[in-house]
């Protein structure tokens, strides 16, 4: 399940990464791509998901409005 999240996020950020590769020289682009993906993977692991909203609470709030 966790791996799926990582793959999906990287897949969705691919265009953004490809765009950012133009910030560095041609010969460093592969390195940059790897670096960015590494940063994303690290962040997904470290990120604190403590206060995730609950689906049914939100639905309730939504219906109360």
């Amino acid at each position, binding site marked *: 399940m966790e791996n799926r999240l990582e793959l999906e996020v990287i897949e969705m950020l691919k265009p953004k990464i490809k765009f950012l590769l133009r910030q560095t020289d041609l010969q460093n682009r592969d390195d940059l791509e790897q670096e*960015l993906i590494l940063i994303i993977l690290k962040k997904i692991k470290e990120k604190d998901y403590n206060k995730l909203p609950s689906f049914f609470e939100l639905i309730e709030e939504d219906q109360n409005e």
Partner: protein
Amino acid sequence: MGWYFVGNRLLETFLIDTENKQLYNSYLEDSTVKKKEMLERRFSYHVKKIRILSYFIKTLHFESKRFDMKIRNFAYQNPLILDKTSDDYGANLLDLIASDNRFERDLDSNKLEEIIEDKNLNRIVSALTAKQKVILNLIYVKDLQEETVAKQLGITIQAVNKTKKTALNNIRQRYI
């Protein structure tokens, strides 16, 4: 009000997914704990994904900048031997290394000297490096685009352009 909006958006994007929508509808028809748990689990997955995405859409840009800066600093502090200027023509040592691309072996760097009749110019051109001569020959005699030249030689367009410019500058300075 702000929280309501966020919640609404999250729900909206969550329920766009047909699988989630079906699950929610079937829960409304027949509420079981299992379905409820599954909905919660899928929803928290969805929220996680959205949070990570929105975080990186904002910050990835800085990370790539930082990386480029790091590389530049490193190159500045540890210059490579091949980046040294090799002669008074201002060519890099790197520019002088022959590529083993098969196209290059067919290219004759002396062609340029055979064509130029002006003695003064001929003398200057023959003093250019082999690589500069090849590039000038391809661009001006064979009338190729810089892009095509780069492909044939297996180097970047920028390198072709730079070599061309240095060569032309040399000729300009020395031609009396």
